[in-house]
């Protein structure tokens, strides 16, 4: 069918475009790390020269920067991120595997929460435009966007964990209780933004001519909303999911620190401070690939929602 091949061509085109992005990501991160003054072994006790030379050779730090770069690219191509410099017994792949499970769980849960709650609140506010419910919801949403997560988190911990004792103040043991606060705090600003976005978009759509046409056809209002208004209203939200994920990943660094969660964000910050090149690179690439793939996915979902886009590329 015409529709299917246009979607397929669209996907292929987009996939090809990802490669330069990936390359740039790796290159920038690589050279940035190397430019940092200080090497991975500086903070330890003074090592005798030969041991230090051995270590440098083991991690190929004695080669020229360009050589190291190409060696690294070839390793990454086979998904080998090398050994961690700081955590001597672990490979980066293993560390990422561990941290990933935690971070992805939190991230996914937060994203789903943000999308569901955000769009729901936004639609309610839009349908009750300029009433008290609308002002209240949007005022709270603005607060959600404005309060940094490192302000909300301690306050929530204080109220719900320390004073009330309902939830743990930190740590991670895969129990629902330990998940609640991190997931909620992580999703808060995104939920708030999605709520505002949905409301604005919904209001605009409800004023379009084709909604007027739908009403003129005698369709009940809930059918008009569900069948005619919802899809176009959600388009900007779907577009936003890409940057929203990037934002959440940035936010997770803080959340993991506050709640003492052994996720990738913590590994990253530690690695950066300790000049653990391989670990830092591994995390950056992992997250970068994740974001790129997610943006790709979002693009596809958007094209499915908005048929006009599918034809632009191929015409």
């Amino acid at each position, binding site marked *: 069918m015409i529709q299917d091949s246009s979607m397929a061509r669209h996907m292929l085109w987009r996939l090809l475009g990802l490669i330069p992005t990936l390359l740039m990501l790796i290159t920038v991160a690589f050279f940035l790390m190397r430019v940092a003054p200080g090497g991975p072994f500086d903070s330890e006790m003074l090592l005798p020269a030969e041991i230090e030379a051995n270590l440098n050779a083991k991690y190929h730090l004695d080669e020229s920067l360009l050589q190291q770069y190409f060696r690294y690219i070839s390793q990454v191509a086979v998904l080998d991120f090398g050994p961690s410099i700081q955590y001597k017994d672990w490979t980066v792949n293993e560390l990422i595997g561990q941290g990933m499970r935690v971070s992805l769980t939190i991230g996914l849960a937060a994203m789903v929460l943000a999308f569901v709650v955000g769009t729901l609140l936004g639609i309610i506010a839009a349908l009750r435009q300029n009433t008290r419910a609308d002002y209240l919801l949007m005022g709270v949403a603005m607060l959600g966007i404005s309060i940094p997560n490192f302000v909300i988190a301690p306050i929530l911990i204080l109220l719900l964990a320390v004073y009330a004792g309902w939830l743990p103040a930190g740590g991670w043991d895969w129990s629902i209780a330990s998940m609640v606060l991190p997931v909620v705090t992580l999703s808060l600003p995104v939920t708030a933004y999605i709520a505002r976005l949905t409301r604005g978009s919904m209001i605009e759509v409800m004023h*379009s*001519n*084709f909604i*007027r*046409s*739908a*009403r*003129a*056809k*005698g*369709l*009940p*209002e809930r*059918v008009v909303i569900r*069948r*005619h208004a919802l*899809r*176009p209203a959600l388009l900007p939200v779907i577009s936003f999911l890409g940057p929203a994920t990037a934002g959440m990943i940035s936010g997770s660094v803080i959340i993991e620190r506050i709640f003492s969660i052994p996720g990738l964000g913590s590994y990253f910050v530690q690695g950066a401070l300790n000049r653990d090149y391989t670990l830092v690179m591994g995390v950056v690439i992992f997250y970068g690939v994740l974001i790129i793939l997610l943006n790709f996915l979002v693009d596809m979902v958007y094209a499915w*929602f*908005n*048929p*006009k886009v599918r*034809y632009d590329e191929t015409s």
Partner: protein
Amino acid sequence: MALLEVKDLDVGFDTPEGEVHAVNQLNFSIEAGDTLALVGESGSGKTQSVMAILGLLAENGHMSGQALFKGKDLLQMSSSELNRHRGSEIAMIFQDPVTSLNPYLRLDKQMTEVLVQHRGLSKADARAKAVEMLRAVHIPDPARIIRQYPHELSGGMRQKVMVAMGLLGEPELLIADEPTAALDVTVQVEVTHLMSALRETTNAAIILISHDLGIVAGICDRVLVMYAGEAVECGSVDQIYYDPKHPYTQGLLNSVPRLDQPDDMELEAIPGNPPNLLNLPVGCKFRDRCPKAFDACTEKPPMQLDEDRHAYRCFLGDTA
């Protein structure tokens, strides 16, 4: 009983600059099988009066008066009550098919919902009827077209789809708002013929909103001329075109180029501008531009009723 009887319709809008009076004390009626044209410039209130009747006014709009459809007042109905009539007994064809069709839905979904909602047909039956209707409006290969999105069609086809959608519910009253405005001439003719055919096959009444006097002459029986939200003249097509009584109507007809005039003849424009709807003048609203205005025109002129139901709002007697 008249199919639709509009009495003393007033429509206004609240804006930051004040209240815009779009329609003032409009009265008309239409019987089954009639074709009535609402004629006037942009801003004369033709579209808004119809929007008010169908309950489609913008949020800052308000209306008063009566719009009796088969005896029941549409203006007093809630949306759910109105929904029983909209789309089935009263159908509307909008002016701009680009924005009036939902760009995110395929045509079959948009077309079949009227039948599914009002006639209780299954989706398959509704789709079959819709395809038939597309064929009837001369759209080629309708079974394929109906699976497409609006932006994949040409402008003329989109308008024909809108006409088809309006006719699907088998309405007793069809309201067409400038259905030919965005089209090139050949398609205009087609659409006009479609509407004439409708008159003949069903006994539907048609309200045609247009500023194109040529189209109006083609299919309408009666004409209502509007100016600044008011009806200024109403009569049969022959009466209006051959014996216009109101100076505005006369001015309108004089400004239309005609085939039987010499090529280099200058068109007479009506001097001046339409009045500001925020601040309407007292008395006759046309007086500032009227070549025949005199002292009495500062008072509101009465609607004079001639023999043969030819009405016009002016102080002057026979102004021909």
